[in-house]
């Protein structure tokens, strides 16, 4: 196995173009586990940790651009105000040691349906920045996840950043696991209010072959809130609205039975999570508008 250590992004892209079989590695929290257990033996590893520009974030025009190598710990500590949902999801990743190493870029690269940040990226309307020697393109998160651990990158592309709209509007993330910390998702859910667009984003994780948006739930709730003029003058949400939203979220999922939980449980839990997180987000929003 070759271990490629580029110092610059340009160098990294050249290497990736020459060696499309090289597996990028940053925090190593996924890749090293696969290597250690002999589940994977790539011909080459492409170490991205020397590339300074991947380890920074910046914000302009209402968007936060997070370099693919920024660890979860920094997202929690530095971006909690601007990206509340992503910070909440980051907080549920593994242990402190894992959060110090692991990155959103890595979460996207692995594209596991159980990855903790995916539902938030979908609900918040993030885009993935993919670069190659051919140039840079932006892939909406909605188009990024293609199948179990499969994503929309070309073999010569690297994830350089994820762009997430900054917001002061409420977002929530919630994840069910059978342990109170350091647990992989049985299912997860994110909701993001987009009052400027009179819209709600909602997405499920670990409940389908890919993370996916709950489009019918989004449309139902957006229409409900807009038609009752609630964006301008929010009122407590009717229980029936929260329940319907929960049902539609559950319907968006196509989970399986596995060692972590039954399909029926996942659907049930998603409806509960959706109802609760919507309640918290809406209460928060009502407080802000009032």
């Amino acid at each position, binding site marked *: 196995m070759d271990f490629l250590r580029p110092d610059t992004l340009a160098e990294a892209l050249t290497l990736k173009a020459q060696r499309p079989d090289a597996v990028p590695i940053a925090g190593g929290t996924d890749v090293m586990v696969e290597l250690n257990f002999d589940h994977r033996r790539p011909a080459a590893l492409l170490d991205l940790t020397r590339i300074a520009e991947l380890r920074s974030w910046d914000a302009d025009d209402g968007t936060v651009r997070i370099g693919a190598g920024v660890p979860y710990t920094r997202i929690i500590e530095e971006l909690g105000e601007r990206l509340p949902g992503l910070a909440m999801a980051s907080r549920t990743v593994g242990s402190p040691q894992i959060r110090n190493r692991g990155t959103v870029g890595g979460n996207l690269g692995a594209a596991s349906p159980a990855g903790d940040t995916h539902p938030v990226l979908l609900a918040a309307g993030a885009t993935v920045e993919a670069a190659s020697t051919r140039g840079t393109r932006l892939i909406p998160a909605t188009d990024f996840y293609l199948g179990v651990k499969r994503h929309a990158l070309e073999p010569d592309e690297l994830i350089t950043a994820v762009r997430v709209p900054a917001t002061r509007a409420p977002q929530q993330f919630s994840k069910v696991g059978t342990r109170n910390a350091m647990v992989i998702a*049985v299912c997860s859910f994110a909701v993001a209010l987009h009052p400027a667009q009179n819209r709600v984003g909602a997405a499920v994780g670990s409940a389908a072959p890919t993370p996916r948006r709950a489009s019918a739930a989004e449309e139902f709730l957006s229409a409900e809130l807009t038609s009752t003029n609630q964006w301008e003058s929010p009122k407590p949400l009717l229980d029936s609205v929260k329940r319907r939203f929960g049902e539609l979220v559950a319907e968006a999922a196509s989970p399986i039975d596995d*060692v972590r939980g039954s399909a029926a449980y996942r659907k049930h*839990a998603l409806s509960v999570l959706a109802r*609760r997180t919507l309640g918290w987000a809406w209460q928060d929003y009502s407080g802000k508008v009032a």
Partner: protein
Amino acid sequence: MSLTPAELTSAVSGGIGSSPQRPDGNLKVRGEFAYASDLWHEDMIWGATLRSPHPYARIVSIDLTEALQVPGVYAVLTHQDVPGQNRYGLEHKDQPVLAEDVVRYQGEPVALVGADHPETAQRAMKRIKVEYEVLTPVVDMETAVDDTPLHPGGNLVRHVPVRRGDQHAEAEVVVTGRYEVGMQDQAFLGPESGLAVPDEEGGVDLYIATQWLHVDQGQVAAALGRPLEQVRLTLSGVGGAFGGREDLSMQVHACLLALHTGKPTKMVYNREESFYGHVHRHPAVLYYEHGADHTGKLVYVKARIYLDGGAYASSTGAVVANAATLGIGPYDVDNVTVDCWGVYTNNPPCGAMRGFGAVQAGFAYESQMDKLAEALGMDPVDVRIVNAMSEGSVMPTGQVVDSAAPVAQLLKLVKDKPMPPLSTVVDLRDMPGGVSNTTHGEGVVRGVGYAVGIKNICFSEGYDDYSTARVRLQVINGEPAALAHTAAAEVGQGLVTIMQQIVRTELGVERVTILPMDTSIGNGGSTSASRQTYVTGGAVKAACAAVREKLAKLAGGRDPSAVDLVELLGDEVIDETVEWRHRATEPIDPETGQGNAHVQYGFAAHRAVVDVDVELGLVKVVELDCAQDVGKALNPQAVLGQIQGGSAQGLGLAVMEEIQTAGGKVRNPSFTDYLIPTVLDMPPMSIDVLELADPNAPYGVRGVGEPPTISSTPAIVAAIRAATGLALTRVPVRPEHITGT
């Protein structure tokens, strides 16, 4: 004439009753402790194990050709290369070192590779071609006895009946239940590791993480076809055991490779392989019927208990006897009918794990006591106290409990503790679901549950259970110094510290060196059954007494306590070795289960307070308080550590820990999916330690490690039942059991 300890101990600190710092503590915290997986030898090679992918299959052929061609490979071995007996086992020699014509569980070792690098070994292993004819596995413990026989004698490993009193007693109130216990794993953090170093004369030195050096030695020597003196074992750094290291893992394998290649051979399992590399706790199905009068007094208890031993016997027989003889719990019952069966299946082999049969029974009988309380409209603690055994009680085996059995007192202690307040501020870390942000209080219901348990301490049923200790006393650099040597395994529980404390107390010498544990001294017995402080502690104490006798002789007519130890010893080296036994036990009658089978009984009680998110089925154990009698706390801090650890392991079984199998295959051999409690799952504990000395035991000690594992699980489940109103008859309780989805 002999000296008493008191005459020697005036100015010595760190003796019994204190909590001196452990020699391994700081090293472990800093990550500097050398575990068996850190073993290294110049010029060593690495061993790897090819395991069966099938729970049950006939081996049609094995082709090693390609594996042997891999550069860097020194040896590829099969059962044909086992020079001695290709069978081993703790109770029955039924397990092949390497499979012959049949594999009986997924993960059974089939072949070994020795290579210059672990990677090379892995690559070569994948080139071994094994042709299997897959057979239908036997996986149901309740019907296994009538299913395809997996061993020559059929699928029954052992049946223990216990019969006491009227077998047809009737009662006013009757409750029945069927309970299930899932397969728990010891989940020790240091995976199986060892290093075998061949000598020039056909012998081998094995450095190994184990629980019992001498029983390993005997089994390894038999498999290698070598005399005992050619197979020498030294304990290496052990990262936890909990029963999972009583059986052989790679002991013979590493030695085979070392002797075959003439090279030091290291083997270390990774986490996944570790799940296949050791036995687990027996899953159980238990049927109970309790009959009581209207005051709650038990009239009779009937139980049928099935334990799934998996593919090989391991210690199933002794686990069966425990589940049967302790099967009704710490209660006075005149009429008892218990049957326990341990069976062979093609599930993973099961054997020893902390609590050893008493855990499975404990979940069922304590669930029954709660059911009985409910049927009678009684308080669950009261119904237990009405029936609580005490010193002088008679066990269902007929054995009289002849030392403290403060069952009622333990229950009262946990009941009388103040209740934790309901939290008023939302802190996710205190919520069911924790930092995953699943509730801010929605759906959360609090419940409280109680349980008490009983465990036998030391080996039972007439086993010649002893330990050997050597203590040396001499003057080094003008100071008296002692040295103690045993073969009893320190597995992290703190035996090394206890031995030092005993020598300090007995000889009044502060400087006490503990020699590495190895087979150059006699048998120390197993580090299991909560027995080492009792038995090896007793042996060290007795060796010290022998040393004191020699000291008295040196003193001649003088009053020895008045003479300075340095002066008295001069150039003398006093070196004494003793074998020490606890009082003998008896076998039980095979028809009635009657007999004085056990040495000592230990008791613990728990109160669990839980918050359950009833909509999501998630649980936060808010409090898990315990009261336990330990006879005498030789090291109070270590005692608390044992109670906390045992309680945590019980919590794991209550709400998360299970090896899930399907058709004999393990579905979750990883710490991603086999979950053990974290600091956010395990609450801080309030612990009451009673010290009611057992006059039969050294210093009055009572084994500590296992009792808290027994009562923790049913107390937590009782609390979840109280919060949810659900029956919950299976552990671990999964979210689906609570939500009904």
